[in-house]
Each structure stands twice: as C-alpha cells, then as structure tokens.
C-alpha cells in the first residue's frame, strides 16, 4: 500500500545512494563516474519537478489514461498466434522450443 506513506526525508533531495539503489532495481550497472554524472543530472530534473511535488492537490482525482474507456473485451475465440519457430528464431538462446536462461538464484552448485 503506497497511499499514506511518508516520503523518507525531502523528496527532492536525490543523492548517490538513491541513484545506486534505483539502478540496482532497474538492473543497470553504473561505473563510479556514471553514478556521479547521473546523480547530478537526475537531481536537476527532479528539482524542476519540485513545483509539482509542492502543489496541494487534495481532492483532485488522478488521471492514469486520457480516454474514458474501461474493461475492453473481445469475444473469446481461438485465433492463430505468432509463428512459434519465427518467435524462437529471434531469441538469444533456445532449448526444446523454450527460451533458455542462465541459472535462476541460489549459489553455484
């Protein structure tokens, strides 16, 4: 549940530690130089966004999507999908008609 959670500290202050954490969440590895550069750049952009963060918007409903459409459904009828061989041909690694990936989690055996 996100609503009601207090931001830990000043929401606009973005430091090296936050950028390193966010990069890890986003599966990006940064060099020390990149970490410095991106921290400065992202802090500048967020500071520009501070005008929005400072607004009192109590009672204003959020908009996630510009169209008033809800629950778009279509008849549940079988139809051809993408060609399996063609899809698998674009994959980096395949085994037995499946995408093959390296070991998931745990220590090396």
């Amino acid at each position, binding site marked *: 549940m996100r609503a009601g959670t207090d931001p830990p500290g000043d929401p606009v202050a973005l430091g090296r530690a936050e950028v390193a954490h966010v990069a890890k969440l986003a599966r990006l590895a940064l060099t020390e130089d990149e970490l410095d550069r991106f921290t400065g750049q992202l802090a500048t952009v967020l500071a520009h966004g501070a005008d929005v963060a400072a607004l009192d*918007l109590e009672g204003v409903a959020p908009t996630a999507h510009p169209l008033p459409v809800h629950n778009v459904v279509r008849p549940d009828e079988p139809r051809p999908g993408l060609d399996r061989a063609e899809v698998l041909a*674009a994959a980096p690694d395949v085994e037995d008609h499946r995408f093959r990936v390296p070991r998931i989690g745990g220590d090396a055996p």
Partner: protein
Amino acid sequence: MTGGPGGTGPALAVAHAVRTGERSARQVVEEALTAIVDGDGSIGAFVTVTGEEALAAADAVDASVVSGADPGVLAGVPVALKDNLCTHGIRTTCSSRILEHWRPPYDATVVGRLRAAGAVVVGKTNMDEFAMGSSTENSAFGPTRNPRDPGRVPGGSSGGSAAAVAAGFVPLALGSDTGGSIRQPAALCGVVGMKPTYGGISRYGLVAFASSLDQIGPLATTVADAALLYEAIGGHDPCDSTSLAEPPRPVTRALAEHGVEGLRVAVVRELVDGVDADVVRRVDEAAGALEAAGAKMLDEISIPELRYGLSAYYLLAPAEASSNLARYDGVGYGLRVEGPDVTAMNTATRTAGFGDEVKRRIMLGTYALSAGYYDAFYGKAQRVRTLVIEAFSRAYAQVDVLLGATSPTTAFALGAKVDDPLAMYLSDVCTVPSNLAGHPAISVPFGVGDDGLPVGVQVLANARGEAEMFRVAAAIEAAAPAAGS
C-alpha cells in the same frame, strides 16, 4: 541547404499520377531510392533502406493499376517509417543496441494499412533511442542532421522521419509522438507533423515508450497530405484495446469543403511565454492570417495549469517507460550479454544495450514509482494531468482551436544540449500538454526565424477535433511566407 520539399512531389499528386497510369509506382519508388542513396549520406535519416521489398511492392501496385483494381488512395507513394514501428522480417531497432538485430515476427497495424492503401515502405528512419529525446542525437547509430542546415539537429525523437520528408526523399513518413516527438522535429525541419487524438491510430506494433501518451502520426510536406495519411491509417483496431471504437471523422472532405469561416481561435499565453521572440512573431502573423481568412480570433487566453505540464510529463513518461522497458531482459528477443545467473545476465544486457538517456529515464521512472516517493511524484503528476485536462475543457467551451508555438526555438546546433538533459527536456514545453490531455495537435511550417531556420506554428484541438484542426492548419499553410522570407 539540401533540397527541400519537392523530390517526388506531394503524395496526393503522386498517388493521382500512379492511379491514372501517368507514372508507374516503380518509377516513383526508384526515384525515391536513388534520392536516398545520393543524399542520405550527409543527413543520416535512414537506419535501414528496404530497396528490394519496396520495388516488389511497387510492382504489385503497378500490376493492380494494369488489372483495373483499385490500387488505393496512396498508390505508389513512398513512405518512411520511424524505426519503432514493427515490420515483419525487417530490422526494427528503435535506434538501440538492444534491438540492433531484431526482426519482428509481425507488422504493426499501420504498416498493413499503408500497404492496403497502396503506399510503399522504402525504409526505417533514425530516432532518439526508444523515442527518448528531442534532437535524434540519442541514437546508437549516430545523429541525423537537419536538411535545412547540417550543423543543426532535426529535432526528435522522430528526427529521421522529419529529415526524410524535409530532404525530399519521401513525401510522407510516420513518426510517434509521446511528448512532441512528431511536432517538434516537423517544426525544426520545416514540414507538417501531426499527433492525433489518443486512440485515433492503432498503436499495435508500435514499440511502447509511455503507453498512456504514445500516438503514431503523419509527417508530410503539406497539410492535405498529412490529412490523407491520417485518414488512410486511422480507425479502430481490435488489436489495440485503447483504439477508439468510433470511426474517424472524414478530414480530407472537411478540408476540401470548409475554410475557417466562423471558427473561434485563440492564442494560448503559456504556449508563447518563454518562446523566442522571432518564433512568437510568426505565431502572431499566423493568427492575423487566420482572421483575414475569416476565423473569429479571440483575445489571447491563459491556461495557467499548462505551466506544470512539463514537470508532470517528465515524471509520468519515465515512470511508464521504466515499466515498459523492463521487458528488455535478454530472454525472448534482442541483445543478450551472458552472466553467471539470470540477474547478472539481465543487468549485463541492459547495461550494454541501453544508452545514457534511456538509462536516465528508466532510473527517473523507477525512482518516481518507488515506495515512499510514489505519492510525492507519480501521484502528484497524475493529479496535475487531471488539472490540465479540466483546464483544456474550460478553454474549449469558448474556442474551437488553440494556437501556440510548437518549439520555443528554431533548430539548435548539434551537441548544444546533449550534456544537459533538463535543457533538452525544455524543448518539449509547448507540445507535452496535448499528450497529457490525449488531444490532437499539428505543427505547420510558417516562415523562418531570425536565423533563417524554419518556424512551426502549433494548432491544438479538443479530443476528436481533427477536422477543425486540419482546416485551421490549411489556412495557416496557405498564408505562410515563402521559404527564405
């Protein structure tokens, strides 16, 4: 200056000549391919040129003309596609290393509709990586240059498409517009660029950047050509659940039958404030021309909520992008860089495959969505979006069409803003409001600035107001000062 609108001539004329047998589609397409081979080395508009496929498609169009079948409203018209539109079996890179060798297993809906209308795809155009940028310098394959001045950027992110049209290589191109990525490069290159109402053109097969903001749209040398292309590819698509169910309004007929008599038009203060004086002068001249053409020009109006548009956009779009781009994990398609386990492989792949701007946006979005910051950033931005939509609604109760600048400046020098992301983002200040609201907007070339470079005037309309928007755009085009004056 390398050419200009010209080349094959406007799409309407090309299609007419091909449909009547006056010219063959093969001849038209061969000319376009020759122009690209001869001229694109110094511009870099194309990532991939599909010569062989294009000639085969042209021959099919010619065969249908000979057989007496209807070859379509865009018969034989060469079209360039931004490289984030999926083309079956043809490389679709998004100008990213991560998709450098990807050949999609299907066509985007717009590609099928172009083909059905007789258009011939001649290639895929350069762009800012994953459509993130305003200069086409964020391409993994090098920048595109502005055909009006090769030392300047063409704008972005659909800079390759705008440059291909401005250089006269093709009369038509498709781009995508998430925060101005069709309109801003159109303005900087001196061509017409239009973003439809959200849902007006199917996004099936458009590689997603920020799904609640993305729209495909036309770039052309004339307003009539842009309307023709919009009409040919618009309309409901069962493959895109966000595409509008109602059929699009017939804009080419509206253009042919109606001028601007009686339409209420007003300049928006927030779309000219902070804009260079030479650009504002052109907006004012366009307004004067509309009044002379019979439009009812109202006093300038203020929509103060638009001042928050850019900040809201640069929280919402990265947030959606961080989610959409999570799919590039080295598993199903695209680049893989091996690692000892799956997390290391994901990280190595994304680190090697994405450029700096994409990394910045992903991190910004991840931050804006993370627990503790969600309410302060993403939640607030979504509420600002509501305010922008409500404010536009109040304005459209009094006016039919709004006017402003498309870009605060004319084309800037290559390299001028690459190390200053915020300065680059400010290029989008006049265009993002229409994306936040899901409204249509178009940029029309209107003379040049003090530097002799093209100026674009932006025409905005309410949701599904394309007919009025195109009518006003055509009147502005008709009054535009001749190039160089």
